């Protein structure tokens, strides 16, 4: 069914269609509407689930960790400071190998207080073992949420999909919402490595150090293997809905000599700028990342082989560079790395066009809108 929804509304619908059973979330701009929409759906009976009105984000992730480890499909959402407040639980859930889904409406971190987007918050999760995806549009935000339940349950790792503050969370776009039956076909019954609550065993005792090392190693390997799980899920989703959501999207990349790498809502604007430059005969394309973890290094390397690469980060690893830039450099060797759009500063089609043109002409320098 095609309809018009904001990102927040679409995510709420995805959570509903995935037959999520327990939701716990604490409001934070710009995620609040997801929480409110889900509360509404539960109260009206549209969604048969428990909604726990927690008093903080730390408790939000703690509560869904509890319901998830006890066997139920569970969901939470947050942004920015809320994510940082639950940061301890972020690591705990991944280390405990418990599948669940969390939406991050990406929002910059203060001070100064700022409710607008950049990707810093989402990327603080990258080392913990979560599967991390990022949506370009409302449709992807919806699709990734549904796929997230399946992928996380397949590998026993928590899954997060990011969605830009306001640009996606509060912006109405056309969305195709599949029927419940279609989603049921795609999402099997929940499974997980262990279920807590019936058998008399203890989870997480203190003990010899080797157990920690062994489990982390296993998680490390699993996250790598998750690449094929993601691709398989995406293919099956495509069969049912006509839309794929693979590890990354290649936009006019095949014959490109110049390649831009980025992720998030602004990729849409970047694609328009790419089109404009193509009209002018510039062989330029875009590699839009959908997954940051696992980061499919080898596949990215193959896709970017021989090309001049510009990585545009909407985040910054202080003192080092853009997070994506640092990682892509690890795959392809040298590339240009630009940090832009921090704190929600707008970078639109025209800005991208000058940025890419300057890059192609080897004249890209720092300016008020971005820095290298």
């Amino acid at each position, binding site marked *: 069914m095609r309809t018009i929804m904001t990102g927040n509304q679409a995510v709420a619908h995805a959570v509903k269609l995935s037959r999520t*059973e*327990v939701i*716990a979330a604490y409001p934070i701009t710009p995620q609040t509407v997801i929480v409110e929409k889900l509360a509404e759906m539960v109260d009206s009976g549209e969604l048969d689930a*428990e909604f*726990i*009105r*927690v*008093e*903080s984000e*730390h*408790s*939000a992730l*703690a*509560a*869904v*960790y*509890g*319901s*998830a*480890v*006890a*066997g*139920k499909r*569970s969901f939470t959402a947050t942004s920015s400071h809320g994510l940082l407040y639950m940061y*301890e*639980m972020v690591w*705990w859930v991944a280390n405990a190998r418990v599948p669940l889904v969390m939406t991050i409406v990406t929002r910059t971190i203060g001070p100064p207080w700022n409710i607008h987007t950049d990707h810093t918050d989402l990327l603080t999760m990258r080392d913990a073992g979560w599967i991390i995806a990022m949506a370009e549009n409302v449709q992807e935000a919806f699709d990734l949420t549904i796929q997230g339940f399946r992928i996380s349950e397949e590998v026993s790792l928590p899954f997060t999909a990011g969605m830009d503050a306001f640009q996606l969370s509060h912006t109405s776009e056309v969305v195709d919402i599949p029927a419940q039956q279609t989603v049921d076909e795609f999402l099997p019954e929940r499974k997980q490595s262990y279920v*807590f*609550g*019936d*058998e*008399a*065993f*203890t*989870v*997480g*005792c*203190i*003990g*010899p150090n080797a*157990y920690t090392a062994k489990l982390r190693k296993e998680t490390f390997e699993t996250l790598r293997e998750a690449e094929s799980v993601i691709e398989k899920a995406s293919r099956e989703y495509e069969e049912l809905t006509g839309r794929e959501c693979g590890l990354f999207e290649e936009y006019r990349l095949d014959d490109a000599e110049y390649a831009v790498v980025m992720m998030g809502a602004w990729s849409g604007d970047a694609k328009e700028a790419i089109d404009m430059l193509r009209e002018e005969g510039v062989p330029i394309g875009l590699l839009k990342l959908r997954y940051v973890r696992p980061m499919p290094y080898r596949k990215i390397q193959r896709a970017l082989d021989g090309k001049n690469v510009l990585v545009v980060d909407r985040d910054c690893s202080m003192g080092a560079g853009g997070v994506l830039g640092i990682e892509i450099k690890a795959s392809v060797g040298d590339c240009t790395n630009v940090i832009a759009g921090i704190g929600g500063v707008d970078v639109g089609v025209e800005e991208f066009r000058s940025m890419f043109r300057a890059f192609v002409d080897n004249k890209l320098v720092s300016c008020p809108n971005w820095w290298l």
Partner: protein
Amino acid sequence: MEYSEPILLPGNPSCQGCPHGLGLKALGIGLDNPVIVIPAGCSTIIAGIHPKATINAPVLHVPFASAPAVASGIAAAFRREGKDRQVVVWMGDGGADIGFATISGAAVRNEDIIVIVSDNEAYMNTGIQSSGTTFWKAKTTTSPAGKKEERKDLAAIMLMHRIPYVATASVGYLPDFIDKLKRAKEVKGFRFIQLHSPCPPGWRFDSSKTVEMARMAVKCGAWILWEYDGEFRFSPASKPYKNKEKRKSLAEYMRAQGRFKGISDEEIAEIEKAIERQWKFLEAMEGL
């Protein structure tokens, strides 16, 4: 009073004379099929060294401030499943400092769980640091000259959350604690019990005196046993001590513990006044 198998198995890592051993034992007798959530604290260690657990029940170790929230989630999952099992948080006074908001939030939601704070009056697992419930003037590693701050009355604070069941208990009076657990388990909603747990190494007394110390605390009025289940009442063991003339010597209680070494008569008198104020406050609740 009978039970088939102890919930806390022998050969566990607790210290000699540890009150948590007594508390957990009572938990196993008082409750049926508990599912236990344990945040950081002494019980984290007492619960066993991987891969040998010591508690004969499902036990989930969780981060320090998270337990009542995790328990809320587990309870929700059980309801979805139609499972009738009692979710219990077994935590310390340390967890009730760092995780106070979490307890409070769960109480406001009237979560169908039991939270037991086994209160040994300090952050014992990290080596005896001052907590919100540490007794007046007590020496800890972060209050080496004796605690200067006030202490918070956890159970009274929980009473003000308007939850259906709140009680204090003591490891010196296990039948009373067990009765309270049995009554609590029949109540739906958020139930809170603060269990007085004298700690031999932390308070500095011989490991054989744990039960004696707990009883002395009640008898001198320093620890007040009460219960609220719609109506507030003092428990039988504490009733006589409403009358301050009947209270046994606070000095004897305090001087039996190394954590009060060198305490003066003036300081003890000061504390006696604080204890009397606490009684008066609770008496105002009586019959409410």
